[in-house]
């Protein structure tokens, strides 16, 4: 359940941005969550609802943009799509894939006023 900590982190990030960019309410938030980030979007959404109450993001809508997992296969020397950290390379079947993308968790865009 570290989704609760992540939700707290997101709201804190919004508070910091509010000071830096001079806004007082957040209406919509676009979150970029990688397929391999180990985060359950539904759990995070629930936590955000709880944590954002009585903050500047109270009632804000959170959109989840899922980023696909990608890796670099050492055997094939090319980038491949993977859906879990221990996935075999879809081309050669070997387990020599290093994650190169899809493990990020970012707040990418906000609608504010």
């Amino acid at each position, binding site marked *: 359940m570290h989704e609760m900590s992540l939700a707290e982190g997101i709201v804190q990030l919004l508070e910091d941005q509010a000071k830096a960019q001079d806004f007082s309410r957040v209406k919509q938030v676009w979150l970029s969550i990688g397929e391999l980030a180990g985060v359950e979007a539904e759990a995070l959404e629930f936590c955000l609802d709880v944590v954002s109450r009585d903050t500047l993001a109270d009632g804000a809508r959170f959109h989840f943009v899922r980023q696909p997992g990608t890796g670099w296969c050492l055997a094939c020397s090319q980038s491949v799509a993977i859906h879990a*950290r221990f996935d075999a390379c879809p081309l050669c079947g070997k387990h020599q894939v290093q994650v190169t993308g899809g493990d990020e968790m970012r707040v990418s865009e906000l609608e504010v006023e």
Partner: protein
Amino acid sequence: MCTVCGCSKGNVKIEGRAPGGVKFPYRSHHAHAHEHDHSHDHDHDQHHAHPAAATVAEHQPALSQQAGGAALHYGQGAAHAHAPGLSQARMVKIEQDILSKNDGYAAQNRQWLRDRGIFALNLVSSPGSGKTSLLAETIRQLGHDTLVYVVEGDQQTSNDAERIRAAGAPAIQINTGKGCHLDAHMVGQALEQLNPADDSLLLIENVGNLVCPAAFDLGEAHKVAILSVTEGEDKPLKYPDMFAAADVMLLTKIDLLRHLDFDVDVCIANARRVNPKIKVLQLSSKSGDGMDLWIDWLLLEMNDAQLVKQREVARLRQQIAALEQQLQERS
């Protein structure tokens, strides 16, 4: 305690006392103690009942003339907004990592440790893998010549810190309360209290949990995942994030292997599937098998950390000498 989310202010305790400073200033619903930087003078009952449109109407009476509520729908972007001049809705692109706050604290911890030549490890595992026993044995084997400090993370009790102190090392207990992991801010506060000596070894025993601590950098040199042979060989596959985040895997309790069907090779292969670069050490703190390799590795890494500090000190001295030279040439 908050009845909604279960969290509560002051839940985190370091050595039984609430740490100084406000860690969750945005948790206004618990304390209502901080000042908002936006006006917030609405009626609370209504506010909770209507998370969406009605709230905005109350906040900005000017907009209520638009009535019907439909025009105030959150689902519509800034471009569809209200009458011009009335709304300041705008889009802000920030592209910030959600963990950036934690990572910032972690970077501070890392720099603090680096400046002092302290080698720090973040030990993670399931509950019951034998972390504390391994730490106690490690402290004993390192002996009095090596300074070891321990940060103990548990939800409750200070039993582990007491066990470590009994083994002869200064230890500080962080109780995370409801929390399932240590974060960099907690560790930073613990470091201030623990005040480890230069060139020492810092062992951070995380909360027993193979999921959440994977995401939180504490400022350590390496995460060390501890897996006991009484667990399954497939644990690295079941909890891949942790084994991907760790640089080292310690396979512990190997004295029990003869009683078990545990296949060491399969387990290591599973760990390498998740993390091709993971370093694996096998040991038993009870029988002592493999402990020498672990201790050697610790001493080697500590030496490296000390060298980094010494080089930095030498570099700074050179800078000072160069500046003094410049000053003399001018005067």
